[in-house]
């Protein structure tokens, strides 16, 4: 089939406002969902689960969250790691306090708690912008990590200071703890990403998304046309933190099962998610996924090629990895601020008019 929008006329505004206005895109999306839900669960093994698919899904959720705040609403944040920690510790406290609570509710409630915390730390954005806001969120990052280390109540007074996920169930199937099946944890995370990915898209294409983008592009004009900056910025902080909190909860409870806050949710985590949206594309849902996939896969690829293929040391491979990320960030910031998502759009544009050059 040829990739075209010709002959695919929109007869109503409802059609025109779909998430995928082009028919082929819709089919491609449905096919992808069919494979993801119906085929992958039968093929997945431990390696694919823990090294590739779960990290991708969890980081995609976090990247959507940060992209809402930074890419769509224009508020820079270096607090992502700290907000993920809020999600993780909320999940831990909920899991231990209410052992029979279904894990899906645990994750969503953790997201809601993080949303509250996010709005609190978003308050300075009403006064300060850009660099100064970045510094304020950085302070939030360090404060939150310090808090979870300092107050033993958060880690239930465990001797190590770590938090460890006990076995808990979602719809009767264990998704946390030592004895989980790869297909179960995978489907659990996938369901979250697909459901909340669609919800994010719905928010972004309507009133709320437009008020965020208006604040991002020209806050003075936004206010003149009737956008309340307080509501727009705080809702962006809230929704963004909701996603990041859920990502933190899944990261701790489902992906790793045990974490130490400074190690898992330190400033590095903030930068990692930031890299994802820069490489993937600021202000693009597609970019959140491409960026998460890229940042998860590149180190695995480099390790396979350099360590296993060329027999170079792991330390050297790590060094190459860091250098590669640095170079990529600079390249994207200068040459293509809209990231991989824009490159993807250009390829699609070419396909649409193929075989004609213009």
């Amino acid at each position, binding site marked *: 089939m040829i990739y075209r929008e010709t002959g695919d006329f929109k007869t109503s*505004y*409802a059609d025109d406002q779909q998430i995928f206005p082009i028919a082929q895109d819709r089919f491609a999306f449905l096919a992808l969902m069919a494979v993801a839900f119906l085929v992958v669960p039968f093929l997945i093994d431990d390696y694919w689960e823990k090294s590739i698919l779960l990290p991708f899904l969890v980081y995609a959720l976090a990247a959507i969250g940060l992209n809402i705040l930074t890419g769509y609403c224009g508020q820079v944040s270096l607090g992502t790691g700290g907000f993920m920690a809020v999600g993780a510790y909320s999940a831990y406290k909920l899991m231990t306090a209410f052992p029979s609570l279904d894990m899906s509710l645990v994750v969503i409630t953790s997201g809601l708690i993080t949303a509250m915390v996010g709005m609190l730390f978003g308050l300075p954005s009403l006064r300060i912008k850009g660099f100064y806001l970045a510094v304020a969120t950085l302070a939030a990052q360090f404060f939150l990590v310090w808090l979870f280390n300092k107050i033993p109540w958060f880690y239930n007074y465990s001797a190590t200071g770590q938090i460890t996920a006990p076995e808990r169930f979602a719809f009767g199937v264990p998704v946390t703890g030592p004895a989980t099946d790869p297909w179960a944890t995978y489907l659990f995370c996938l369901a979250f990403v697909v459901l909340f990915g669609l919800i994010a898209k*719905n928010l972004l294409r*309507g009133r709320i998304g437009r*008020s965020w983008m208006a604040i991002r*592009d020209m806050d003075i004009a936004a206010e*003149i*046309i009737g956008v309340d900056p307080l509501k727009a910025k705080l809702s962006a902080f809230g929704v963004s933190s909701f996603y990041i909190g859920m990502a933190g909860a899944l990261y701790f409870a489902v992906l790793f099962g045990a974490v130490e806050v400074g190690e898992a949710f330190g400033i590095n985590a903030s930068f990692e998610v930031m890299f994802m949206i820069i490489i993937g594309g600021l202000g693009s849902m597609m970019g959140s996924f491409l960026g998460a996939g890229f940042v998860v896969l590149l180190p695995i690829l480099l390790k396979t090629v350099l360590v296993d293929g060329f027999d170079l040391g792991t330390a050297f491979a790590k060094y190459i990895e860091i250098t590669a990320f640095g170079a990529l960030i600079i390249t994207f910031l200068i040459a293509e601020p809209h990231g991989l998502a824009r490159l993807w759009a250009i390829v699609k544009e070419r396909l649409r008019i193929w075989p004609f050059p213009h």
Partner: protein
Amino acid sequence: MNMDAQLAAHLSGGRQAGGTLLEVKNITLRFGGVEALKNISFDIREGEIRAIIGPNGAGKSSMLNVISGFYHPQEGEVWFRGEKRRPMRPHQIARQGLARTFQNIALFKGMSTLDNIMTGRLTMMRRNMLWQALWKGPAEAEEIAHREAVERIIDFLEIQHIRKKPVGALPYGLQKRVELGRALAAEPKLLLLDEPMAGMNVEEKEDMSRFILDVNDEFGTTIALIEHDMGVVMDLSDRVVVLDYGRKIGDGAPAEVRANPEVIDAYLGVAHE
């Protein structure tokens, strides 16, 4: 289309200027030591096109900024629709039925023409975040209703061809048109235009004049506009306020103002286009 014919049609419409829509009383605005506005009073009547003119730095934009709530004058009052306006934020003033364009275009550069104009309807959209998250149902219905209104504005301004284009890449004249569209989408009672024709060629100016007249005629929108081109001002406006160095030096019908010696002095005394 011929401007004079337009104008004749406009005047023969015999619009009656209604009661007072907005009145500024004894406005004084200072920036540090600079007095940008000195004790300015004038009114805008329902249904009229009111021009504010004056040399560069006269305080015209400052006046619009006071009316739209960006600047808070040290002295004076703004009365809107018969009530003294309490101090409020610009987004609250927008909800009272006031929209504007800017001297330096202030569009949302990362958004399409359609989305830019849709933002003009934000204050009329009610569905909360949960409905929005669901999309199907009330949120979509609301979106479509407002889309229809926005499409009428797009047709009116003849910008169908750039509907899905990001506005950042559009030529200047079209950007000005989109910005007018965004303000119109809010269905304001009072529309403030800060130099809507600055930097346009003759043809673009004629188009823009036609749109302004049509908005005023067809929708009955009251318009206050700042403009440097005296020809345009004389053709478009019902009444003119003249500012110079923050003072009001003239107020009245275009012909009257043009004959005012103080106005002539102000314009001759200053290098001007």
